[in-house]
């Protein structure tokens, strides 16, 4: 069983992955997109989606604390549909966020904007992380978290008071907020890939799994996502519609900016780390779902990453194309994969769980 990799993770690792998965791409292009539709009340759209995401996270945790989507005690056809939906959505989001990462790197970090070269560096790294699997990814996330925390703390300490919170006024929740939520669905609902990461019963030190890390993670997700949206409006006001790469622009308002130039490299490094983890998470979820149909994990990993490279290299070309696709009808995949599937999966664990618990492994083998 060379292809067998462990995907069981601890509750703490699950919490870290959930945090990274949720916040990593809400701080790049999304603030600008939301500002264009919902104006200075864009943060209310984020708040709305965060409450929905909270329910989705609870459902995902409910599933993975008992089993995982591949071993779900559910009728095989239903499980196959769920796996297909999640797999396809994860791949679509992978293409979207790969485009966003490449666009950011090529416009900000390089003079010549050689995005194909950036892809050439990114795709093999993703392939490697995907082959290594969820357990390795969770450990990497655990290691880099301290660096990310240190960068955030440093930025808070050296922050320059560049904004005014009254720019957020008047607060009014309206149709624009709903339209914004609807149009940018693909940037929310980030927890379905975690359905492939069952939580271990016990840690190596004997501690039993518990929900506390996940609750803390959700509080941080809520505060961070809404906080960034608020900070963006406070700093740029209505001018936010012109400002791309929000985290990069916000980070420049610090007391060291004259020394740093156009980018704050600590923030860039921290974001690149969490971006790669998010991409790897989506890639692993895609591979795991494909494996349930075709098997051969290593081969599937390489093929999925190669297809991703091909799609972004030759198919999509520029970020505008994938933006148009993911703000079109395809965005409703998020509703299906990230909101409907966790709920259905949780219901299945309760409805079929007790009856078919003993048959769970059989179903897993069948789908695999």
């Amino acid at each position, binding site marked *: 069983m060379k292809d067998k990799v462990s995907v069981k993770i601890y509750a703490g690792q699950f919490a870290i992955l959930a945090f990274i998965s949720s916040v990593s791409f809400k701080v790049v292009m999304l603030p600008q997109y939301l500002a264009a539709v919902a104006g200075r009340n864009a943060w209310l759209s984020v708040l709305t989606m965060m409450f929905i995401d909270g329910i989705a996270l609870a459902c995902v945790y409910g599933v993975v604390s008992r089993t995982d989507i591949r071993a779900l005690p559910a009728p095989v056809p239903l499980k196959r549909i769920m796996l297909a939906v999640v797999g396809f959505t994860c791949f679509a989001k992978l293409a979207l966020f790969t485009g966003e990462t490449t666009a950011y790197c090529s416009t900000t970090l390089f003079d010549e904007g*050689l995005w194909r070269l950036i892809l050439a560096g990114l795709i093999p790294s993703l392939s490697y992380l995907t082959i290594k699997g969820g357990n390795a990814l969770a450990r990497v996330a655990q290691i880099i978290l301290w660096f990310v925390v240190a960068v955030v703390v440093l930025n808070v300490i050296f922050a320059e008071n560049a904004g005014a919170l009254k720019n957020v006024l*008047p607060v009014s929740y309206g149709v624009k907020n709903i339209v914004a939520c609807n149009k940018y669905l693909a940037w929310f609902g980030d927890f379905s890939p975690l359905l492939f990461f069952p939580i271990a019963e016990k840690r190596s030190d004997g501690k039993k799994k518990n929900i506390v890390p996940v609750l803390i993670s959700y509080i941080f997700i809520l505060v961070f996502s809404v906080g960034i949206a608020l900070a963006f409006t406070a700093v*740029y006001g209505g001018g936010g519609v*012109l*400002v791309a790469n929000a985290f990069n*622009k916000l980070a*420049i308002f610090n007391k060291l900016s004259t020394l740093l*130039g156009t980018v704050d490299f600590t923030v860039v490094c921290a974001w690149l780390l969490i971006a790669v983890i998010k991409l790897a998470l989506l890639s692993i979820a895609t591979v795991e779902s494909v494996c349930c149909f075709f098997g051969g994990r290593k081969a599937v990993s390489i093929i999925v990453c190669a297809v991703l490279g091909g799609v972004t290299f030759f198919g999509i070309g520029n970020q505008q194309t994938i933006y148009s696709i993911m703000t079109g009808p395809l965005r409703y995949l998020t509703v299906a994969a990230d909101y409907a599937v966790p709920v259905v999966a949780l219901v299945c664990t309760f409805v079929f769980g007790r009856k078919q618990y003993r048959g769970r492994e059989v179903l897993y083998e069948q789908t695999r």
Partner: protein
Amino acid sequence: MNRRVKKKWLILVVVIVVVAVFDGLSSNINLLDRAIVVGTGIDIEDGDLALSAQVIIPKNSATASAGNDFVVYTARGKTVQQAIENLSYTVGLKASFAHTNVVILGDKLLKSGRTDVLEFLVKGDIVTDNTLLVASAGEAKDILAVQMPINEVASYHLTEILQSNRKEAGQNPTDLKGYFEDIYKVGNTACLPLVFLRESEFGRLGEGADGEKTKLLDVSHVVVTNRAGYLVRLGRRQSAALSYTTERLNAGCIAYDGDDGIKKEAVILRSDCSKRAISYDEVAIDLDISVRPSEKYYVSPDGSVSGISEEEIRAISAEVISSVVDCFEVCKYYDADVFHLGEELYRKFGEEWKMSVGRTYLDDLKLKISVDISVK
């Protein structure tokens, strides 16, 4: 060596090779092959954009500017991007704008309505959003090329004036971010400090300067703009009034008529401003200013110090109110909501207010100004 260890070494070697050659593959340019631009001026010449860049020629030196040489290069283009590319050809090095402190916009450019220039700067990552924006009374490149009395260059000098002294009465610094923040407020009005050259009585000091004639930079005036560009230039008194209402001040002077009929000045120690929307068509501006007597007028030759009389406090208060009203009326004529009063009304009354008033809400707006002067 077993297969597993071999594989690890292979991966390590591949990573090292990729890291080593990536820099070469990506055509990244060495720091020595870059022209570090510290200040930029943008003008319009014969219908084209003329981008001037003050480029640093480094020497061994520990300070920001002393010991280094600065050269101003100019390149033209139909767009800013084209001008930037042409600039690299002109300089012979890759122009790098990451450390640009100030962008000076020429008079003709502002009056041309080329809003794409500033939009390009804020949308892209060429300069940072905290780069200072300044309007020039003439051509921007003349400001960049000016000889300062000390061994200093215009870009650094402007930055020092506007950033270090940004809380001084009469100065209204803005950066790229602040400009667009204001432009997108209700009323779509923003302000830029106007820089112009003044004759200097000093010769140039420093290595190799030989006492050549120099000029001074004056930033005590303001240009008001809207989304279409240039609207009106405010005078010194109106610009000072604007600074009372936009910044929390801790320096500067208020000139007024003293008891004895002589023009006097009070030194500002602290000044706070708050704006309140009272009703749909009334906004209050409350100024709380703390001043002290200026030594120049209040210390008599025998050394005794006289305070500011009650009458003079009323005169200071009247001067502040009068200058703010003057500024408001001038801007109102151009339909420029320079104090962002519409924004205050919108924040309090929301969309209802916006729907109930037209674009020319300033015509019916009542301004209530109160000034509380305290003497230390």
